[in-house]
């Protein structure tokens, strides 16, 4: 039996197709988010099905998660990204006790029980300073691609200190730093440290180890180091960190299917 998880995030849509008996991933992919979230998600789902010789009718249950989960009309159920991240990470890294998920528009820290269930969580989606949005603003301001930020940061010898708490003001501060001759590599490293510090502050107390890092920002080289430094704990990037939410949704879809 095949089940699907759709993670309708703020910046990208992620779909995972799962063989529900074995929990083996059949296929997974991502697509940029847009206005027609439902249509885009369906397009991605159909594409994955087609690539794997499947049809829509082959999918028994779909669970949607993410910011746009309520807009996915074909979903049999919706589950929050907090629960799905916990479930997806548990599948990939059963020993995980803390999940740090930094996406394009929010960041969250999920504490897990030893059995993988969510114990508690905190979430920031009101301030862009602790999210991938800060990196997007930075890339635009520096005129570089998002993917090259990590390489730049790797060259930093003395990360800049970003004082402002707000991305809008921090952008002004970055202009000032550039004008004063601070190199882009030090500014990128400074911004990465700033995001990581914000996430650590959100945790409010010591986090349980091992810490697993998920979300699109986990793909940016150097962010894991910044996070390790801020949390004072080793941080491991989850395999395919962008799709752990969709994977969790697919696993929950499989559970629903078996309960029926």
């Amino acid at each position, binding site marked *: 039996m095949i089940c699907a998880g759709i993670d309708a995030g703020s910046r990208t849509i992620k779909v995972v197709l799962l063989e529900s008996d074995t929990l083996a991933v059949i296929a997974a992919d991502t697509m940029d988010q847009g206005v027609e979230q439902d249509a885009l998600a369906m397009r991605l789902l159909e594409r994955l099905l087609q690539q794997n010789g499947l049809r829509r009718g082959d999918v028994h249950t779909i669970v949607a998660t993410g*910011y746009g989960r309520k807009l996915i009309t074909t979903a049999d159920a919706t589950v*929050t990204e907090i629960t799905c991240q916990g479930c997806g990470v548990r599948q990939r890294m059963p020993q995980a006790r803390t999940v740090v998920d930094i996406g394009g528009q929010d960041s969250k820290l999920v504490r897990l029980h030893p059995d993988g*269930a*969510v*114990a508690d*969580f905190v*979430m920031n*989606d*009101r301030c862009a300073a602790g999210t991938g949005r800060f990196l997007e603003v930075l890339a635009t301001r520096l005129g570089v691609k998002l993917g090259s930020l990590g390489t730049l940061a790797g060259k930093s010898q003395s990360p800049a200190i970003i004082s402002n708490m707000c991305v809008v003001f921090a952008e002004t501060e970055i202009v000032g730093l550039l004008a004063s001759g601070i190199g882009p590599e030090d500014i990128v490293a400074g911004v990465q440290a700033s995001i990581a510090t914000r996430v650590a502050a959100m945790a409010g107390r010591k986090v349980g180890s091992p810490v697993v890092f998920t979300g699109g920002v986990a793909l940016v080289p150097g962010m894991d180091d910044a996070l390790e430094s801020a949390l004072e704990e080793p941080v491991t990037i989850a395999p395919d960190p962008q799709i752990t939410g969709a994977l969790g949704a697919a696993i929950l879809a499989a559970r629903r299917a078996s309960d029926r």
Partner: protein
Amino acid sequence: MNEAPRRITLDEWDRRHAELWAAGLREPDYGGPLRRHVDDGDLRLLSLEMDNSAAALRLWNFLLTEEERLHRARDEGKKIVGTMKDLGTVPVMAYSLPDVVAFYPDGAWWIPCVMQRSAGLLEIADSLGLDDSFCPVRAMVGAYVNEAHFPIPELTTCSVGATCDDVSALAQRLEALGFPILWWEMPHRRRPDAEEAAVQLSGGFRAPESQIAWVQSELQRVRDALEEHTGQRLTDELLAAGIERANRVRRRLAELRRLAFTADACPMPALEMLIAEMLAIHFCSDQHETIRVLEDLLEEVENRVRSGVGVLAPQAVRVFWVNPVADLRVMNLLEDAGGRICGTEYLFCHALDPIPEDLPPMEALARMALADPMAGPSADRAERICAEARRFGAEAVVISHIPGASHCAIEAAVIGQMVRTRLALPVLEIEVPPITDSMEPTLRTRLEALIETVTERRKR
């Protein structure tokens, strides 16, 4: 006319009201269809779901006609007292005098929500330099300035000291604008030293006798001012009778809370329970009617509990809620997410406790005032929250921040930590501004995630 208990929209209330009338409903003079309040500008009602009982109708109409009641009191020559920041003590004193009406100007903080900011009160406050770095209670300043809501009281009192920095700052600004205020000081409640004479307060707190004496002397100044402004003597006998009436309100609320928080099927929605609890502070400008409104509500809840019917799914997750919300809609949102309220601490839980009737009245009132959770260490407040959450079998705790409120920044960490450590319950912190429409998806996600977390715990 009986109908299964449920939350209904304003449109549904139009039909429901007609049906209730056709079935013989008799309403007090402030009764009528809820729709008329929307016509008066209370636009938020269009976004709320309310309980479908006649008792809830009476509660809503009572709440939404307070301004009319205050203006009528002024026309009838009654003396009006504004009791700022004080949560449940000075109103008891004021209502002990005949022909005196007390109200809670800080209650204007709900006007931006109920009128969906159409009244412009926050904008007036902004223009006076009281921007959104202050608590939404700054709407009160706007209401004093434009005089479009409540009549300016003959006497305004405000407790300061260990209460709330924001309200103190706002009230000081109000006085600078030409509205005289009688200030009375609330000391920071401290734990008695080992050899110090101490008294037990409600809520499980203890305080030195010397602090009680201080608060009593401050309340005596308020008593003198009430006598001066009303031209009446506020005797101990009148105070004792006033305390007895206040306790009637508190007893009914205590029973209402007990039933609503412990029944298997939730018999009354969170929104109506929040409004009912608020009546304990200020009686919505009519103490006698408050008792009748609560009796109606209690009877409805008793009937529902007896019949085993409720307004929510029986498996709803039991949530203890800390701090009142600036946007009433959030209480609907919790229930939409699968939660129900089982215990609350809306900053005035001391006003729900009975006032001792076996003590001299002023001492009894001083003890109650000093039991204010905000007047002591945050750890005291957290202790009480833990005890109540345990008592009502809460499965999760929501700490709702009031944007800009100075106390919220420091309390939440203390309360959250104690709840996690002592009760091992998940804690969710959220911030609720007067209108949450733009952030509803994120609030919904947080609340749903909390419910999912508890649901998963139940399976373990």
